């Protein structure tokens, strides 16, 4: 079973319980900042009169996981995309690549690591909901089986067509995500990225990387071939030159 979250911005009152619970569950330092940082992994922002949560989307085929050179980021079978701070070398490719702009860095530390929501992977492994979902007083954040949440989201849109924008954010974005969102207003008005490709981004680099072994073989053979041919050509020329000299 793969878990996820459904955030319904029409039910969010901006109480901040989610950010409080996240700080506590992950032992993050206070205060709760206005925008996500390496120390504040989720926060409710008020944009254009609407409360919208910022957090990692936990993509099905995460870009950050595919780009990390040391596999410090990992998609677990349960759904959360987790981070191993012990492996991280701080190249920040994950920050550069994430189409949602999620991972953040500890720019102020001499020994910095990346910070992002990990969907309370250890709580989830123990059968608990994520901390944010556990405390949300309005049910704006719902925790559950991911596909079930997609069905619930679609049900809400169908039941209240005048309330919601007819789009469940996270079903097609980046090939699908575990965190889904509903909104009453257009998602770009909430500062959410609407230019994320539908195809998972890792495919863009895999189509090049998968060709590397054959490239090495073919190109190597070609170079050896050129070397052999030109060497032979030089040897023939030298031989002919020598024989012309020695010709009677």
């Amino acid at each position, binding site marked *: 079973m793969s878990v996820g979250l459904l955030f319904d911005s029409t039910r969010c009152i901006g109480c901040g319980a989610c950010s409080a619970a996240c700080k506590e569950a992950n032992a993050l330092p206070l205060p709760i900042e206005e925008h996500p940082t390496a120390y504040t992994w989720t926060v409710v922002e008020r944009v254009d009169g609407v409360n919208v949560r910022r957090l990692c989307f936990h993509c099905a085929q995460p870009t950050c996981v595919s780009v990390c050179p040391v596999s410090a980021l990992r998609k677990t079978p349960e759904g959360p995309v987790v981070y191993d701070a012990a492996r991280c070398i701080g190249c920040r490719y994950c920050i*550069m690549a994430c189409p949602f702009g999620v991972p953040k860095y500890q720019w102020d530390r001499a020994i910095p690591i990346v910070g992002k929501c990990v969907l309370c992977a250890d709580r989830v492994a123990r059968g608990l909901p994520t901390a944010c979902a556990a405390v949300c007083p309005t049910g704006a954040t719902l925790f559950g089986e991911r596909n079930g949440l997609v069905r619930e989201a679609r049900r809400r849109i169908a039941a209240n067509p005048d309330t919601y924008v007819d789009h469940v954010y996270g079903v097609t974005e980046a090939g699908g995500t575990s965190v889904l969102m509903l909104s009453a207003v257009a998602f770009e008005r909430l500062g959410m990225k609407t230019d994320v490709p539908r195809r998972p981004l890792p495919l863009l*680099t895999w189509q090049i990387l998968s060709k590397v072994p054959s490239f090495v073989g073919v190109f190597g053979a070609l170079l050896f071939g050129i070397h052999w041919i030109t060497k032979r050509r030089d040897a023939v020329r030298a031989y002919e030159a020598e024989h012309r000299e020695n010709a009677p």
Partner: protein
Amino acid sequence: MTGASAVQQAVRRIGFWEAVFAVVLVLFAGVTVLRFTRGLGAVTNLSDQFPWGLWIGFDVLCGVGLAAGAFTLTATVHVFNLHRFEPIVRPAILTGFLGYLLVIGGLLFDLGQPWRIWHALVFWNPHSVMFEVAWCVMLYTAVLAIEFSPVVFERWRLERPRRILRSITTPLVIAGVILSTLHQSSLGSLYLIVPSKLHPLWYTPLLPYLFVISAIGAGIGMTILESYLSKRAFGRHLEMDLLEPLARCMVVALGVYALLRVIVIMQSGAAAMLLNPGYEAWMFLLEMVVGVVLPVGLLLVERVRTHPTGLVVSALLAVLGFVMNRLNVSVTGMEGAAGVRYVPSWMEVTVSLGLVALGFALFALAVRYLPVFPEPARGRSS
């Protein structure tokens, strides 16, 4: 005496460039301490919105590309068997080797935890372009070191190692060419993953190929420039009979590159942006004019191509254009989506300058004490 005249006296005694070098190194040392005690935020203008800046855009992308002269020249001599280019192979390898040392130096500053740089050796991710870059850089730096070692062995008259190396020259050079092509292209592949972020005037699925071709062009340009600077510093002459045909290869490389760029932006529709140029369009035009149109135009004229000044100026333009391209891909092209303008801090610039200065110094030392050039270098004392 006054402060100003004291400085003037000191500079006259030590030498202008040496004084500049000393100042840069002192600042460099100070910034290094700050960088490792206070973290990246204290020293750079990087941020979550703009995580890669000058040290990646210039030190890594340009450093690697500009050292492409090494693989271009070793291929010319040992794969295409054009042995008349042999005299300029060693300085090209040295430039390449130092170039890669400086790239690694830049990475040691940019990585958040550079002491963990060896992690890529034990923790793998074959799906990551960065992983491929890391391995290729490590392997190719080793290849360059091995390719350069005969110079050292010659100096200390170690005949056996020299002979062993001579016997593995061909596979070694071929390995070097393959590795170099792979990661020149993978530096471009790094940016394939951000189609919604990199500006359409630079983003294309052909990025890896464009990076290789422009690296060949820039590598040749760097070889020409390095010959010129060596001439000025060590009293060497410009080997026009070798550099002129190389310049022709550079024209071909740049020409193919330009054609591909034009095809790409016309197919994607990005070309329309050039009709009503905004900031990015102007940067694109500047890069193409300075780095491709001008040098190609100049070098097509035989009188320019066969004259040392014409050759060097064209090479300089091509190299500048290359640097502009890499900075446009990594900085200019990424600013729009990031929503911030990135300007490197003076401390970032100091580090980059310091690394380049160290490269020059190491090059001078190597030329002074090792048989890098065919005849003994008769340089003035520095």
